[in-house]
């Protein structure tokens, strides 16, 4: 149906890469915009609402509305990051200093490819996931690659040759290690469940979604979801876990010495991590592209076709768009939750972060794993 798969391998790769960039960058920008707007609303402010573009601003209702929404700030910010002077402090290690933001971006963008973002129904009515690289290792790949992101922080901290970035880098690495464990342990019950005895073993996230046509794992395994979510906050260095940045005590943490486009790369990477993290969470615990618990994508499409009588609803393109929409909605909601939490909960002290990771979450995750292992064993032996 798509000529796409007839394209040469390298062209496919390039197009996919461009697609990732074309999606992630604007999304990251939109997130930054959303963050400013949401924080403003939560604080009783209107938020950014000044920037405007002449012709659009002249459109009677829409122009002012977009301006009030602060949409054009996004463009202005982007332009600013691109055209701003790029200072490189004299005391830094230039190579690593320049390398760090690039390294930050690579795993963020790379992880995307292993995350399915929608599905369509093929002629047989089977659900085919939309994914750039449908690798079987799935979640493991995501974990493996995204964890590399911390290197950029460490490199940035070290290369800056300055005490705040250095401390920021140290904190980032320690924090990542601390919470990676809990996170990984928290998803194990999900995969224990997916990999039914006798079935083909898989770590595929698409499979995960497929298994959530009924009850979502979030309902099934709330504790896992909770541990995963908290760890996700910590992994993405979001408040209340943004110790590496921690502007109150570390000025800007690892990126203190960065500015302009290099800084924006860190910025985009952070949002990319958030997007991926949210996506993974949605896939694991919120049913992926299944619209509601106990309502699968196939059910939805079937009802739609039945109700409207339109045939094209069953067309793969339409289903794909619906599924992407559902998935994206969930992701954006999670992004909102990130922001919501950020403007609600104050930052932890660093020792509290460590304590929470090692003494609370890790035992909890282990306990959770054991509990679900027993439950699953019990349930599956019964069925």
């Amino acid at each position, binding site marked *: 149906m798509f000529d796409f798969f007839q394209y040469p391998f390298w062209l496919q790769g390039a197009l996919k890469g461009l697609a990732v960039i074309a999606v992630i960058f604007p999304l990251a920008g939109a997130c930054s915009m959303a963050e400013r707007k949401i924080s403003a609303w939560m604080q*009783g402010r*209107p938020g950014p609402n000044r920037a405007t573009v002449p012709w659009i601003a002249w459109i009677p209702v829409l122009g002012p509305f977009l301006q009030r929404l602060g949409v054009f700030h996004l463009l202005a910010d982007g332009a600013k990051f691109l055209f701003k002077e790029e200072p490189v402090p004299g005391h830094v290690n230039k190579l690593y200093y320049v390398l760090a933001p690039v390294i930050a971006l690579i795993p963020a963008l790379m992880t995307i490819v292993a995350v399915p973002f929608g599905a369509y129904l093929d002629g047989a009515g089977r659900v085919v996931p939309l994914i750039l690289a449908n690798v079987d290792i799935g979640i493991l790949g995501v974990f493996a690659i995204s964890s590399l992101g911390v290197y950029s922080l460490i490199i940035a901290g070290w290369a800056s040759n300055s005490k705040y970035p250095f401390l920021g880098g140290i904190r980032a690495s320690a924090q990542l290690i601390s919470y990676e464990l809990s996170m990984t342990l928290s998803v194990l019950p999900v995969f224990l469940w997916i990999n039914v005895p006798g079935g083909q073993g898989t770590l595929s996230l698409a499979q995960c979604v497929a298994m959530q046509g009924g009850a979502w794992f979030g309902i099934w395994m709330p504790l896992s979801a909770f541990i995963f979510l908290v760890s996700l906050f910590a992994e993405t260095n979001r408040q209340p876990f943004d110790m590496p940045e921690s502007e109150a005590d570390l000025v800007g943490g690892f990126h203190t010495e960065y500015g302009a486009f290099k800084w924006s790369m860190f910025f985009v990477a952070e949002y990319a991590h958030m997007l991926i993290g949210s996506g993974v969470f949605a896939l694991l615990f919120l049913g992926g592209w299944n619209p509601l618990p106990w309502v699968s994508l196939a059910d939805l499409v079937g009802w739609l076709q039945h109700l409207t009588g339109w045939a094209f609803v069953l067309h793969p393109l339409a289903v794909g768009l619906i599924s992407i929409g559902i998935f994206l909605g969930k992701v954006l909601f999670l992004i909102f939750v990130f922001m919501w939490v950020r403007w*609600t909960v104050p930052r932890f002290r660093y020792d509290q972060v460590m304590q929470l990771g090692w003494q609370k979450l890790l035992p909890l995750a282990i306990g959770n794993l054991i509990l679900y292992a027993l439950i699953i064993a019990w349930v599956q032996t019964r069925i």
Partner: protein
Amino acid sequence: MAVLPVERKPLSFAERTYMPQIFSGLKTTFKRMIKPAETLEYPEQRPTIPNGYRGVPTLVKDPHGREKCVSCQLCEFVCPPKAIRITPGEIPLESPTGHVEKAPQAFDIDMLRCIYCGLCQEVCPEEAIFLQNQYSMSGYSRAEMVNHKDRLYELGGTLPDKHYKWDKKKSAEDAAAHGGGHH
């Protein structure tokens, strides 16, 4: 100093997880988010300045256009950050306000130093200096941030005068000059 141990309230399990607090916090922020904004959108919307507001210090003239400051330098003396600098001068006898004798030759307020405390207004015996409604002072250089006498009068304008101290004095002098003394 004695050490007073303070008994902390024992926390319940729920409290120790912090979750109820976090959720109530989330509730608060969410509620706040859907309420209308409180902020004033500054350049378009201007705040209503309450009485007694202490804005930029200015010099005022009386309703007859006479400069009220007589350069007594009390404000210069009292100014905590030493933002005021006055060069006193003499009013020539033939001037219409010659009976006042003294007026500032130069009157500078360094707004980079000014802390808007209002002591100058309080101490002024001539009611010549007022912290008025003007609250934004900006400039591109340090020199620009020093308000000179002309600028201070421009900012200050004219305020009603309850006393007309010097006018009364002048009319008494004129009366004495025409009345030919006392005997």
